């Protein structure tokens, strides 16, 4: 599974939550790839995936969260996807 978090530099909201989300991803799916992408540097890729708000999280190339979820919401989404594998 490929998890990509698009953020803007200096986003305090992102910094507070992203470590918890990354830990949740690694705990549930140890082989998941986790990338944190500066939307300014990856603008074309963000547009390609359909990111229109920041921060956003894409899973396997689809924008799943258009704002940061809390760790519980994120775990629920990941479990749903593991179940569908």
């Amino acid at each position, binding site marked *: 599974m490929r998890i990509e978090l698009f953020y803007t530099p200096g986003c305090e909201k992102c910094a507070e939550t992203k470590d918890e989300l990354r830990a949740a991803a690694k705990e549930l799916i140890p082989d998941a790839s986790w990338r944190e992408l500066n*939307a300014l540097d990856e603008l074309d890729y963000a547009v390609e995936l*359909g990111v229109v708000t920041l921060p956003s999280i894409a899973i396997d190339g689809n924008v799943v969260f258009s704002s940061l979820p809390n760790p519980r919401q994120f775990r629920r989404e990941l479990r749903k996807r593991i179940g569908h594998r």
Partner: protein
Amino acid sequence: MALTIGKIANLANVSTDTLRYYERERLITPAAKSSGGYRLYERDALPRIRFIKQAQRCGFSLTDIRALLTLRAENRACCRDVRRVALEKKLQLEAKIKAMKVMSKALTNLIRECSGDARALADCPILAALDRANGLGRTAR
């Protein structure tokens, strides 16, 4: 010195209707009303009106502009908060451009399909293709 709505509209190069609309959208508020009930504005409303107009030209919706003006008034907000709003707007514009390019390409293909001759509308390949895209067969009508 307080300015009437007509005076400030004239200085900002907008209509009085526009200013009333901005007021309904909670973007500007008259400083006071005269004894006759006319709206009166302070001169510092002028840069605010110009800011709103310029932001509209840059593609910001009135909701976005309200958010920007709120950010501007917040002590805790800083430039990077505004940059995030601007970046989100750019992402939205780029998404629209991408969708429009797809539409434009589809139209190019449709135009290629049509020889532009005088055949009947029932045989028009462009209309037929649009019907197919809608899941309607022209023969099924």
